[in-house]
């Protein structure tokens, strides 16, 4: 049982980390709290569902389909809200309320489009079957989720640490004013980061339909809470931290489910509260480490 919980916790934890990356990026770069993050994940799940049931494609194809769409929507949406955020005395609070509204709109539209019922993808290449790892049997989707999450996170790291735009993004993370002074196009860099954040959320949604046993419109709020917990545990604006936070979260959840199933539901919230109150900069974030 220890081995099972350990492996399952790592595999699912990597997925959680990936699912939280976009939230971490948006918060770190833009100081925008995307309460609608979980709802974008839900939209990604529905895209995978539709591609699989209507077009009979491998649901994983939804990831390359979702990324450009999400980036374009993110770019446009950020341009739309940037003036209001710039005018506000407290942009963080404004973004909180604004995205709270956006999350309601997405959930309502998803309900109108797909009904409140849970949709599952039990068939197809990812949904059924299981694999053996170290003598333990795991459902197929757990290693698949981890196999998408790790390269995904590596790509984000490559972007942040090995590209010029990534350098600009990190400059923005550490100080918006200094970035402006250094001649960085803050508007464009911010908009692009928001687009990437949405693309990450939508890609995570393609995996979420398996990991969370299906998709329904009201999942968004829970997914946002989970992602926020992971980000808080790992520290903000740092992809490595998000993955590490995801691992802590996944392991805690899997061990709780194995040993104390009655109280397992409490674990995410207790973990979130404990980390926030004891070490608000995150377990893996050094205060000064913004890049």
């Amino acid at each position, binding site marked *: 049982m220890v081995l099972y919980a350990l492996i399952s916790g790592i595999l699912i934890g990597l997925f959680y980390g990936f699912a939280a990356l976009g939230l971490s990026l948006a918060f770190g770069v833009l100081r925008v709290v995307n309460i609608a993050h979980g709802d974008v994940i839900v939209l990604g799940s529905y895209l995978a569902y539709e591609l699989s049931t209507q077009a009979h494609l491998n649901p994983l194809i939804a990831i390359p389909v979702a990324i450009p769409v999400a980036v374009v929507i993110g770019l446009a949406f950020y341009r739309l809200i940037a003036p209001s955020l710039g005018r506000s005395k407290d942009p963080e*609070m404004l973004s909180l309320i604004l995205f709270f*509204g956006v999350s*309601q*709109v997405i959930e309502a539209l998803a309900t109108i489009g797909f009904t409140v019922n849970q949709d599952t993808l039990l068939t197809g290449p990812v949904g059924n079957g299981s694999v053996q790892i170290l003598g333990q049997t795991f459902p197929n989707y757990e290693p698949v989720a981890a196999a998408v999450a790790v390269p995904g996170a590596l790509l984000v790291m490559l972007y942040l640490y090995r590209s010029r735009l990534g350098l600009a993004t990190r400059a923005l993370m550490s100080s918006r004013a200094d970035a402006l002074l250094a001649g960085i196009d803050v508007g464009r860099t911010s908009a692009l980061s928001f687009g990437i954040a949405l693309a990450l959320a939508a890609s995570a949604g393609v995996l979420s339909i398996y990991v969370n046993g299906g998709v329904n419109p009201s999942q968004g*709020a829970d997914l946002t809470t989970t992602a*926020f917990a992971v980000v808080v545990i790992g520290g903000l604006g740092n992809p490595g931290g998000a993955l590490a936070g995801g691992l802590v979260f996944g392991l805690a959840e899997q061990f709780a489910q194995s040993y104390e199933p009655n*109280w397992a539901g409490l674990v995410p*919230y207790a973990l979130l509260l404990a980390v926030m*109150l004891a070490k608000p900069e995150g377990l893996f974030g050094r205060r000064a480490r913004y890049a």
Partner: protein
Amino acid sequence: MPNVAAGASGQRATSAQIWRRRAIDLASVLVPTVLFALARTVDSNLLLLVSIMVYVVLAQGVNVIYGFTGYLPFGYVGFFGAGAYGAYVAVAHLGANAVEATALGGVAAVLVGVVLIPLLRLRGAYFAIASLAAALALSSIVSNPAVTSVTNGPYGADLTRVFSSGGSYWTAVVIVALAMVSVVALRRSRLGLLLRAVRADQVSASCAGVNVVAARTGAWLLSALLAGLAGAVYAWSISVFYPTAVFDTTISLFAIVFALFGGVGTVLGPVVGAVVLYYVYNAIGVNDPQYFQLIFGVVIVIIALFLPGGLAALALGARRRLGARRGLGGAQPVGGSDVR
């Protein structure tokens, strides 16, 4: 209100202004209370009226904590559920009557508020999400099968023994009055002044000798009390309920949006917001919740982007413009024109 503007600018108010202010305060408490007391002669659906009153109280509770401190409690429903279950435990285990149980529901919520005081160390989004996590954790504890002997766990609470539709109705009217008095008193009291100072500039306020933590804690516990009383009277009026119903995060959502829509930081804004939007909800939201949610979401986005003060700001802006046109208007002739 021009007279308030004069008072706030530091000039000594004349006695006529003081009396006028008192009359306005009294009216803001009495008008909603009397209207709700009379409402049963117009609408015989008492459960609907109690629900509206419950949301009026919740919106005022959000007003107290968000309007006066800037802390946005996504987990506000935690106090509501604590109140409902406090009332249940009081009736089922302590043999309390319904009114005592309602009061004990309020006490239970205040106790939860005391336990959660450390959350006030967090700010902005951290506080909002942490309060949500706390509410979900509380819900998960209350509904756990392991505590069935206390809360009846996931199997629901039964208060039919003390059911009284008239009794819960009148108690709700009293709680609405209490909520109105709280907000009016908070606006006029020293605590309210301290909180506004903290909101304007925390560091300066603390340098001027304001105990920032104590002032915030006061507002936090007051808003917990209001939500607890609302939860208890709601539990009493529906009499059979499950943890999922009284810890439903939609309740936080409604309370926050009603308050924002009406205008936080004002006395009557949350009341108007709650009554208007709850009637809209009742008209379309019960059968087609998704369309109501869509309207709701759009309203929030519009408030966030264009109307941070809610309906109250709209009304105030219109009044100032009118006053400026008539040439009356002690209401800042310059400020009046750039309210938009």
